[in-house]
């Protein structure tokens, strides 16, 4: 059974320039002991989706379930009980910790909100600090005394405080340096192995997502355009956007990098305030046809590929229209 | 843009209503009414006469009725009658308004000129003797009470040196011709405008300096230098305009307080403006005039805000996008 799921979730923002549909009809499931990757370009609604699942921003439509319970309309009292099951790690290790509190206080906060006793909090905090690999001495210090990686560990400790079943990780390593990034990713993997927690892992860094995810969701302008097992998508992306994303990601291997002919996407990201008619991707799609300009493709399963879904009229898997886009990917992954 | 302006003007109605109610309440709370002042001042002792005055001033009606009546008349652009000056409120204010506007505009002009220039110099020469001198000067004028400054200037320039008149707005009974009259007003204007202007200039200097330094930190300044632009080009083309925005905000605030900003200086220099009128009206509980000035003031605030919006709009293309 999925721990966290969403059905047809939409989020809208009223802005001075009109309504912005940040998340559009998104459904997802996160199962036990699973890491679901969520990728997409900046501004495509990843964070908004994450926050909507946390009920930090109100959902305009759709439902959110935690362990099968519909929490979409729960009042603030009732939601408090759910909070222990779903937690969030934030993108910015500098901005997500209150600079005025000590680390001990920050990590203990969810516990104190949940009504724990002082002594219990203290014990649990010590345990957590250990778990994320920080020294006990850290508890009396302030966030600004820590490096980015250490801060992210503090954030993780806070998220894990109440033993959540699922943690939404909003680009937890984007702000970190390469070497530190590895530390944090390894930590998350260890924790998952240890506690069985599930992750919804939001990132725009494909190499990281690839490394950590079991399943993958690809978003474009507020919609999911492709989903499926990471191992399936990676070698053979179905949506041209996914293919383009994979192609664009730089490869840390000079020979490989030289050998592949990169075909970069042309054109700019359309404004989410004013998304294109038809398929939102058609303005940049190398294989777009007349139909794509008028008709918006629905998310559908790909025949013969269990668990894979795509929103494209001419997806690269069934149509076998393997233009150079797909071709290069194969070579890249096989290398 | 037009929407912003429209919004501004839509906000003004509740604002004016608020101003009226707030101050009406305040005046009603006061011991000593306009009637008391008037009967005392005119040494009226006859109870019949006092009653006659009460009816004349409309003070025989309940407060709420007075308030509603006032609001109604303001809506019909009638600001009432000032029995103290024996003229309509509009006429009374109208007589005092030009003097205040001239004084404030002059002092704002002085302040802008001195302040922006000094601020730019201080920022460009930051941490040098120039910067220190300017900063110390700014803090000095910022800290000196304006009336004190005014009196000092008066003693030096009018009394000791005899260069400038001691007060008033023009030489009386002398016809200098149109040009000469203007010159005459300017001579009278010099000291009060300077006393006020120096205070505001200190503010502008500080704001401008801080704002320039802030802009200097931006990456685009480094980009501009990387392009090979000279220091002057960088300052004038890239920094200055970006640094002007806080100054515009300050200017807007100052424009908004035009009517109240000069009470003290008007007193020192016998400048026949709204400040003295307001002081007299408050003291004599002459609320039609007090309210009239405040309503006018809120109009001016609205206009000033609109002007700031327009200036922002011109200066900062990012705002144009909204």
């Amino acid at each position, binding site marked *: 059974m999925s721990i966290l799921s969403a059905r047809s979730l939409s989020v809208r923002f009223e802005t001075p320039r009109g309504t912005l549909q940040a998340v559009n009809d998104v459904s997802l499931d996160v199962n036990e002991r699973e890491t679901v990757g969520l990728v997409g370009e900046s501004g495509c609604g990843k964070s908004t989706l994450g926050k909507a699942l946390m009920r930090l921003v109100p959902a305009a439509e759709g439902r959110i379930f935690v362990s099968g319970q519909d929490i979409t309309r729960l009042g603030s009292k009732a939601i408090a009980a759910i909070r222990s099951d779903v937690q969030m790690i934030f993108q910015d290790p500098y901005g997500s910790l209150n600079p005025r509190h000590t680390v001990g206080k920050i990590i203990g906060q969810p516990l104190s909100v949940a009504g724990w006793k002082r002594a219990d909090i203290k014990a649990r905090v010590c345990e957590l600090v250990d778990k994320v690999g920080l020294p006990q001495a850290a508890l009396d210090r302030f966030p600004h005394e820590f490096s980015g990686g250490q801060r992210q560990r503090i954030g993780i400790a806070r998220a894990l405080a109440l033993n959540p079943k699922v943690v939404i990780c909003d680009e937890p390593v984007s702000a970190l340096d390469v070497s530190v990034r590895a530390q944090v990713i390894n930590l998350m993997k260890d924790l998952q192995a240890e506690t069985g927690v599930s992750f919804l892992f939001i990132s725009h860094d494909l190499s990281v997502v690839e490394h950590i995810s079991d399943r993958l969701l690809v978003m474009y302008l507020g919609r999911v355009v492709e989903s499926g097992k990471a191992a399936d998508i990676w070698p053979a992306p179905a949506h041209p956007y996914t293919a383009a994303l994979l192609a664009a990601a730089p490869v840390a291997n000079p020979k490989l990098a030289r050998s592949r002919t990169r075909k970069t996407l042309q054109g700019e990201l359309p404004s989410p305030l004013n998304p294109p008619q038809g398929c939102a991707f058609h303005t940049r799609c190398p294989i777009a046809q007349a139909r794509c300009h008028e008709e918006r493709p629905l998310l559908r399963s790909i025949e013969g590929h269990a668990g894979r879904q795509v929103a494209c009229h001419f997806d690269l898997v069934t149509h076998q229209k393997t233009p150079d886009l797909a071709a290069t990917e194969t070579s890249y992954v096989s290398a | 843009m037009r929407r912003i302006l429209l919004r501004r003007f839509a906000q003004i109605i509740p604002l004016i209503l608020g101003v009226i109610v707030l101050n009406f309440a305040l005046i009603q709370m006061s*011991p000593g009414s306009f009637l008391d002042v008037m009967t005392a001042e*005119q040494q009226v002792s*006859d109870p019949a006469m006092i009653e006659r005055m009460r009816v004349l001033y409309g003070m025989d009606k309940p407060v709420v009725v007075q308030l509603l009546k006032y609001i109604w008349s303001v809506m019909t652009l009638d600001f009432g009658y000032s029995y103290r000056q024996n003229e309509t409120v509009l006429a009374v204010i109208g007589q005092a308004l030009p003097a205040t506007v001239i004084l404030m505009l002059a002092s704002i002009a002085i302040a802008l000129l001195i302040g922006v220039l000094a601020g730019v110099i201080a920022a460009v020469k930051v941490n040098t003797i120039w910067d220190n001198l300017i900063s110390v000067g700014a803090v000095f004028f910022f800290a000196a009470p304006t009336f004190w400054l005014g009196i000092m200037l008066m003693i030096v320039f009018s009394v000791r040196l005899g260069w400038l008149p001691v007060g008033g707005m023009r030489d009386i009974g002398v016809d200098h011709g149109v040009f000469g009259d203007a010159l005459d007003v300017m001579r009278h204007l010099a000291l009060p405008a300077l006393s006020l202007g120096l205070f505001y200039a200190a503010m502008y200097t500080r704001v401008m300096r801080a704002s320039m330094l802030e802009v200097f930190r931006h990456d685009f300044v480094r980009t501009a230098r990387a392009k090979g632009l000279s220091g002057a080009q960088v300052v004038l083309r890239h920094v200055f305009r970006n640094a002007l925005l806080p100054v515009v905000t300050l200017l807007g605030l100052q424009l908004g307080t035009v009517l109240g900003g000069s009470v003290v200086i008007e007193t020192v220099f*016998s400048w026949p403006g709204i400040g003295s009128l307001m002081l007299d009206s408050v003291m004599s509980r002459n609320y039609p005039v007090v309210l009239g000035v405040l309503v006018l003031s809120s109009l001016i605030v609205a206009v000033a805000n609109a002007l700031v919006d327009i200036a922002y709009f011109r200066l900062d293309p990012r705002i144009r996008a909204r």
Partner: protein
Amino acid sequence: QGAATATPKRGGTLTATWGGFEPQALFVPPGGGSSPYFTSTKVLERLLRLDTSLNFQPVLATEVTPAADFKSYTIKLRPNVTWHDGKPFTADDVVYNALSYWKPVSAGLALKALTGAEAVDPLTVKLTFNTTVPEFFLKSVLAGKAGLVIPKHLYDGKELLTNPANNLPVGTGPWKVKEWVRGSHVEMERFDKYWDAGKPYADRLVIRWWRDPASRSAAFEAGQLDIGCFNPIPAPDIKRLEATKKFVSTTKGYENSAWIASIEFNGRRDITKNVAVRQALMHAIDREFIADTIYFGLAKPATGFIPSSNALFYTKDVEQYPFDVELAAKKLDAAGYPLKGKTRFKISLVAAGWFEENVKLGQYLKQALEDVGVEVDLAIPDRATSLKRIYGDYDYDIAISNNSGPVELVPYWTQFVTTDGIVKGAAFRNANGFSDPKMDTLVENLATNTDPAKRKALAVEFQQTVAKQLPITALVDINSVTVARSDVRDHSQDADFMGESWSRVWLDR
């Protein structure tokens, strides 16, 4: 001032000011205090004026004669007088003034006996009264603040208080209003058809206002001011200016508008209704100090209620309360208020905040009373609040205020102690609540007795009673000062110079 021998020169602009603020209107029908009085008297004239030797001189009236029974007066008017707008001045104007302006609006209690006025011929008016009216009394009213003559043709049938002519008055006087710039000045030019041919001497009279005394003295020094009445500049500056020889100062010209700083005891309050307490407290006050320090010597310690400048009625022969702290304490003990701990009792002291000296007076008095063990709660409210507290709500134990009045005692001085002077809300009246039938009769006699000698005796009795009962008395008689450039000639030659028309002042340049 002096120089009566020199022949007056014509021409020039006379710039004047006074030690107060701008008037609310150039002419305020019910009176309006010194400021509008200063401006309106340059335009509007009266029937008579009082000179410095307390003789009445003709102005618009050539003669004012009582009937044998003193119940009516005949007034002969000056011929060939025209208003500034060209209309002739006639007996009708005076009749209108007497019945529609003076009696109901400006004179208050003074003309309550007036029953009729009729024009006998175009230049003769007869006033009739229901009691006898002393000659000095009536003439004093006609020459006083209430006696301005306004044009009937502009006022008749219209609201007096809001008449537009109040702002730009039209009169018979030597000066025509040319322009009034509110907040700054009023400019007047000579009236060519003035009845006193050849006058005024100056071409132009400009009255300017400064709120700040320091500015006025700066204006004098900068040569932008010729004359200032009623303490225009800070007292220390007077000596400094005089030392330059370019300026003179005089205390003459205020005989008919003497000012005092008064102290009033509220008879409605438990402690201050006790005469013994009032008398005791008076001993605690050092009037020399007040005169010397607070007024910089420009005041005289008062001996009684009526100022010593009143050559006609003043008497020194009243109960005196010399400064003697111990005596004061002793008398307070005797009055039943011994020291309890450090204090005897607590009183509230309200000093009317319209003059700067009153602020200091209040502070001094607080200290002086504390020295005899009286705790003082001092308030120095602004003008409006002061008026309200003292004359409206009677909310004080002791009040410090100021009074000014003419030589004639009735009603200006007497109404502070008569029963009919108690008018709630009316300022500068009986606020202490003193009410004594004997006093009322005494004042009634003073108002109706036509024998000058008898009146003088009654006046002495009046002063003695007030000094004994002490509902109110003067702390100091304020010396009002006029400061002028030395080339301003023939000023300060009336008993109320500030309220004169200034047609005879000239500039020796």
